[in-house]
């Protein structure tokens, strides 16, 4: 199984893997990805089943993002080099 991720998507996944559940604005501040791009990346990752974004009243931007089991699996296995996350060039 190969999942092609661009740099921004990888950055967002790695940030979520490192920090746990975050709001989109926290992801943006952490990765320096601009707000519009951050939401687009999160949406693209959510469509691929790698993250979940849900409403949250406690978050300053009203949303929370978390990795899914599929993404955790990919990141773990990727770190063992049994599966590769191939960057789009």
């Amino acid at each position: 199984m190969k999942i092609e991720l661009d740099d921004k998507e990888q950055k967002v996944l790695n940030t979520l893997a490192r920090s746990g559940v975050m709001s989109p604005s926290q992801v943006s501040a952490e990765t320096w990805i601009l707000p519009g791009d951050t939401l687009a990346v999160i949406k693209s990752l959510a469509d691929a089943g790698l993250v979940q974004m849900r409403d949250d009243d406690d978050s300053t931007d009203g949303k929370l993002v978390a990795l899914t089991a599929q993404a955790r699996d990919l990141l773990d296995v990727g770190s063992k080099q049994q599966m590769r996350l191939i960057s789009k060039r």
Partner: protein
Amino acid sequence: MAPLAGAEATPPSTNEPRRGPGGWTVLIVLLLLAFAVFLAFPMETVSLQPWVPALQAQLRTVVGQGWPYVAVALLGAIVGLAEIVSTFPNYPREALRTRWAQNLVLVNAVAAPLALAVVQIYAPTTNLILTVLGVGIGFQAIIRTRFTLAKQIGGSGEGDVSLNLGWLYEQFQNLCKTQIDLELMNGRRTAVTRLIERYPTLAELHDIAEYTVIARATLTSDEEKAKQAELDRLFDPKAPANVARTGLALMILENGGQAYVDLLLSQPAVPVKSTSPESVVKSLIDRYSLNDLVALALRLMTSQQEQNWVQQAAQPAPGMNEASQKAFIARFLVERIGAETALKAMTEPPAE
């Protein structure tokens, strides 16, 4: 500490010193040892009151005749414990602490010697050790045997007078298990409610729930994946927030156990300070318009790269409204310069 309702081993708060379960175990072991020494010590060679060797001889006789019943009662109790543990694998300790679990173990410990007595009546010549082991472990099967007291002559068996202890035992067993489950449910509800009160945000609950999955050493890879999939299901965007919170708290309890929940609840709650990043971000969003927030950010951040980011973030973008842009810029600002500096800048007029 979050006590389980009905779990009576959880002591009430009191100033009187109480003997813990470890203390009772030591005391019982010491008494048993003293009893064994008393039985084994040759009293006949020592000059004592004449009633002491007589008592010892009587006790030796009683123990000699009664040990199979004691052994079988212990085995029966162990079978009862194993039954409860296997019925409630997620909460074995809490289940064993309930009153009904103790009743079930006690009934097992009493029923097993009765079954031994019946077996000895029906088969008095069988090997005693094998009988003790067989009855101790399999007494429930013996109990379930229908003992026919009077048989109908020439009948099909429907008119026989028989004693069906198994039915009675099964009813009692089911009653105990139902009551244990109800007591545990009360306890779970209490623990879940307290967890949600202590960790009210979805982010906190999700992170703790994820930790309880990752930190478990005994989970197989497949079990871990199944639990992570369950975590995703609970965090599903379609699930209402209160349902997600309850589900995550329950998952923490089931994966981490009551002791871990007690540990989480014993952590002192950190009061939300006005200088916390969340509070400062909220204040910035509430207090400033987008243009004012951008101006503040440009004033406080000296790096060209940071200023460029803020200016680009303030540009219209698909899917972004002004409130969202403010949230992103406020967060970026607080992350870059720190919450306290941002708060200070909000309260102080800009330097000329």
